[in-house]
């Protein structure tokens, strides 16, 4: 433990703080000789613009993404976007982020498992393009203080780590941490049901021994590997048709910035969002005639 709360209390920081009026001279912003545009979250707008250029055709012509109910995503203020997670290398995160950024002109901060940061090159690229480690402190700052859109996949790595035979069956929603994030930040949760990601890179088998050796959550063998070969297949997606449905935002009538929230309330809310997402996924699949053409 770095700092116990008791110490903070015992010394009452505010009690002895002198209230000094700040003079206008020091209010001027400090000289900040930055050379790059990498911000506190590790993103670079320059690199993101380049990535959008490259990803645009993939989004439009390859996955042919279609949105329903995009108007339910708030155009201002913080909101936590929650979606189902799929494909061996998840294709849903960039689709959601790119889609909302292009359609609504709002940046989306994608929360990802910390393990990302341990991968050389990939981890750095992910951060430069808009990925943030899923730490509650990060989420709070983004949602409450900076009023941003944050995307999180409550299934975590269990979503993309499942086999093709389990497609569109939602895994456990963690320990409901995403609901607590939204409650603490006082923002709504906007669930998004994604159809198409599962078929873009289906996992046929997994190699647990290799995963353990490499220290990664899973090592998949995908249908893409069989079709495109071991190298290209690791990166190339199948052109499955993407359909996304934004569900009604969920708000919580609880005071924000609390240290903890009732666990039963949190689990109830998490479960109700999971059920809603699952129902909508099944509903969308009932209407889908073709994996490739929707």
């Amino acid at each position, binding site marked *: 433990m*770095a700092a116990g709360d008791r110490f903070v209390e015992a010394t009452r920081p505010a009690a002895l703080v002198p209230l*000094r009026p700040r003079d206008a001279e020091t209010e001027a912003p400090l000289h900040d000789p930055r050379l*790059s545009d990498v911000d506190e979250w590790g993103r670079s707008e320059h690199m993101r613009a380049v990535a959008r250029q490259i990803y645009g055709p993939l989004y439009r012509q390859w996955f042919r993404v279609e949105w329903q109910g995009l108007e339910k995503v708030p155009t201002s203020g913080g909101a936590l976007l929650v979606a189902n997670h799929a494909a061996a290398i998840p294709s849903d995160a960039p689709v959601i982020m790119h889609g909302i950024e292009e359609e609504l002109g709002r940046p989306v901060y994608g929360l990802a498992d910390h393990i990302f940061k341990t991968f050389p*090159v990939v981890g750095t690229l992910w951060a430069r393009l808009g990925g943030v480690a899923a730490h509650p402190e990060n989420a709070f700052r983004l949602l409450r203080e900076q009023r941003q859109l944050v995307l999180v996949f409550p299934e975590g790595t269990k979503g993309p780590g499942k086999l093709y035979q389990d497609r569109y069956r939602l895994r456990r929603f963690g320990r409901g941490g995403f609901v607590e994030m939204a409650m603490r930040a006082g923002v709504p949760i906007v669930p998004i049901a994604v159809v198409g990601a599962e078929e873009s890179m289906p996992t046929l088998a997994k190699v647990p021994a290799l995963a353990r050796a490499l220290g990664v959550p899973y090592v998949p063998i995908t249908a893409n590997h069989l079709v495109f070969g071991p190298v290209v297949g690791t990166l190339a997606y199948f052109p499955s048709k993407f359909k996304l449905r934004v569900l009604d935002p969920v708000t919580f009538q609880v005071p924000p910035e609390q240290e903890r929230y009732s666990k039963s309330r949190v689990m109830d809310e998490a479960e109700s969002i999971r059920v809603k997402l699952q129902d909508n996924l099944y509903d969308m699949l009932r209407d889908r005639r073709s994996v490739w053409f929707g």
Partner: protein
Amino acid sequence: MGRRVLITGLGTFWGGRMAQALEQDPDVEMIVGLDTVTPSVELERTEYVRADQSYSILSRIVRAAQVDTIVHTFLVVDSTRMSGRALHETNVIGTMNLLAAASTAGAPVRQIVVKSSSLVYGSSFQDPVWFREETPRTGPPRTRIESSLLEAEGYLRDFAEDNPHVVVTLLRFANVLGTEIVTATSQALERQTAPYVFGFDPLIQFVEEGDVVRCLEFVTRHGVAGIFNVAGDGRLPWSEVASICGVRLLPLPFVLTNVAAAPLRQLGLLDLPSELLTLLRFGRGIDNRRLKDAGFTYRYTSAGAVENFARARRLRRTVGATPPEYTYERDVEAFFRHSPAVVRNPEA
């Protein structure tokens, strides 16, 4: 009556500068500085005592000099400075003795300021982008310096609980860069090439050396209690730090980094301790807003601190390192402070 201050680590960069700053303050009546090495900066009225931080000496000094304020700058935060054993002695045992001396029955101590480091937060892939003062570190300490600082902070926490009448201030500083201070980071950037871990470009935060002294002075003078992070605004990628300094980066392998670093250390090509190699992978950010809310204003941002260092570095590379202008001479200092021949208040 003015304040009576004890500074530990007078011979260190911070101890010396803190003493200089306090000498300018008319409210400070007396300054005693403790260290095993002589002061490296010129001091006018500070009394230097060559002593280690043993309990008996400390408690005698505190009582004899009626010390009401202790500024503990002696915590070692740079593990290239001493061996692990000596580090433990200085940081853990030294702090324990100091706090014990400050809490003896009837001790006149009313404020303690401790200069710690953001090393107590560690650096790990599980870290948040910004650590607030309450945010717990995400893993157990891996290096000796981190665990010794955590232990020292633990003693301070106990002291604060047992002595509610004492104003306790704990400052955690980010990596320091400036025109004069020499740290493991500054040494790494002093050469023409600096190491980086291949595939990683972490965001690092700095605080300028002048801001550190001003901050120590600020909390001491105003009696600000609590734990505070001290760091410049913003974080910048290591690659940007290198380009501001005009340093080329050479890659270290991302696997077995420490193994690869060992022969380089032997050859003297690299002096980065393992806690800095971890920093070069994951970086660290500490939230500095609490100290700003307390009324402190910084003069430099993180990037500003790097630029300040880079300017001093360019000067050093052109004209060479300037030799120290001051060496401590015991008899000379004693003469100016205590000899009846010296007229101390010419106007009076």
